[in-house]
């Protein structure tokens, strides 16, 4: 590594440190309730636990958001939409998975429309345990995410970029084809 490259890398590292400070303290989550664990999110968001203290807030569209919450099981139909949403989000982006259903299917291990392990299809930064996770657990998970961003460990989006073919192959295996014409009522 030449001197110039090292300087660039150093500057980049410093810049990353500064931006990570802001990123850690201002996490906008995508308002997308993919499954049943989302029912405890209002509790975590509203008066009792007040997620906004941590600088987290809901955002309307994937473009604006930083973190997507996969709240519980994912049916294939939702997986397709989650992939759309995840790929629309601007980098750096994070993914938080709730409950056992995202690890091995949980109680839906034998259900025909529900995928089993989410990390085959999308990279996961934080898992939150519980069926369903209590608001305390949710808040704890978000705190973990914040700490990980500060320590620069929340690198799921890099992993996704680097191993895109592998992820894509798995996605297509489960979904048939990734993009469909969504005209089912006609």
């Amino acid at each position: 590594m030449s001197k110039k490259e090292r300087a660039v890398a150093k500057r980049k590292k410093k810049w990353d440190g500064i931006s990570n400070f802001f990123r850690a303290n201002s996490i906008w989550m995508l308002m997308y309730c993919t499954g049943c664990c989302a029912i405890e999110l209002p509790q975590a968001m509203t008066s009792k636990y007040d997620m906004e203290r941590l600088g987290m807030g809901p955002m309307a569209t994937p473009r604006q958001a930083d973190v997507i919450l996969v709240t519980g099981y994912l049916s294939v139909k939702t997986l397709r939409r989650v992939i759309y949403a995840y790929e629309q989000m601007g980098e750096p982006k994070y993914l938080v998975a709730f409950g056992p259903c995202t690890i091995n299917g949980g109680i839906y291990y034998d259900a025909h429309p529900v995928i089993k392990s989410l990390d085959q299809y999308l990279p996961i930064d934080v898992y939150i345990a519980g069926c369903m996770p209590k608001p305390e657990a949710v808040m704890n998970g978000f705190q973990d995410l914040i700490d990980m961003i500060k320590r620069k460990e929340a690198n799921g989006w890099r992993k996704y970029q680097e191993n895109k073919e592998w992820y894509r192959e798995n996605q297509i295996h489960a979904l048939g084809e990734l993009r469909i014409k969504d005209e089912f009522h006609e």
Partner: protein
Amino acid sequence: MKEVKLFVGPQHPGMHGNASIHMYVDGDIINRAYLLPGMLHRGFEKSMEKRTWMNNIALIPRICVPEPDTNEMVYAMNIEALANIEVPERAHWIRMLVLELARLAIHLMAFGGCGGPTGLYTAMYWAQADRDGILELFEEISGQRIYHMYIVAGGVRKDLPKGIEKKIIAYIDDLEARLPDYEELVLNNPSIRKRLVDNIILPKEVVWELGVTGIGMRSATGEPYDLRKVTPYARYDKVEFDVPTATYSDAQTRMTLKYLEMYQTIRIIRQVLDMMPKGKVRAKVDDGSALRWKVPAGQVYSAVEASRGEYGYYTVSTGELMPYRVAVRGASFPQGLLGLEKYLPGHRIDDAPLWFDTMGICSPEIDR
């Protein structure tokens, strides 16, 4: 102007749950609209055929997330009808208590939910904070905040914890004192009234056509068509309560009925706590292992009054270890699919989330 196709949802802040509306809009007016369900489809009806009668108790609350207790209740009622189980008296009353607390929680959530689409986030914050109290009561009663798995065939899983009555009374006293605030904030708020009054009307004749039940039906027909009155289950015939009705079903009426029902629910809870007898809470349903329990053969349908309407299960048993078939009638199936398709056109984009909220549409129970 050209017709534009809009995908509202599944990722959309205005959607209740994970569903999608395909809208064809002309400017702001909806020309056609269809619900695209299935995002929450988990194949419950198939999974239940692969689990024993007892195992299913853990599975069924997940069918309707905001109000899981009705699932447990209809499932238990079905098994009791098939196997002729006599439920202990106290269990009936505890079931009523749990069901009414759940109804209170979901009505509060509806009030908060009305705040989302109309932009009144204060209502959402207040309602969720009040709902949290009920979830804590549930945690104390059953050990879980959301999925209680508390009502089982033959009664309830365990007796109420000591001293819970006082906490419930304290909570509902508190809530009753706060309810007028909600009336001021939501029902009497001029800007909200502008959105709700004379909007999203459900005509009377349509109710029968669609099969809409619950608040939608009572607000249009003016008849007290409530399953708790018409076919009383548990001990609803022993308590006194009124069924609020109306004859003109716009969004405001439906929200008002929800509001009035909360008072009735509080009234029922008070009576239940007064009249609850002592005794056993669970009948013995099986000999030996619950996992080898076989329910006698038969085909039966039971329904209870959920906050959104008639919630029922059709259960087929062949006398085996597992159910042969369980079919779920989601209470919001008619208004969610056919109702939306028929009665949203002609309204504005802004009205779609309000239809969801005031009709109480719960997408997981549509999808199963």
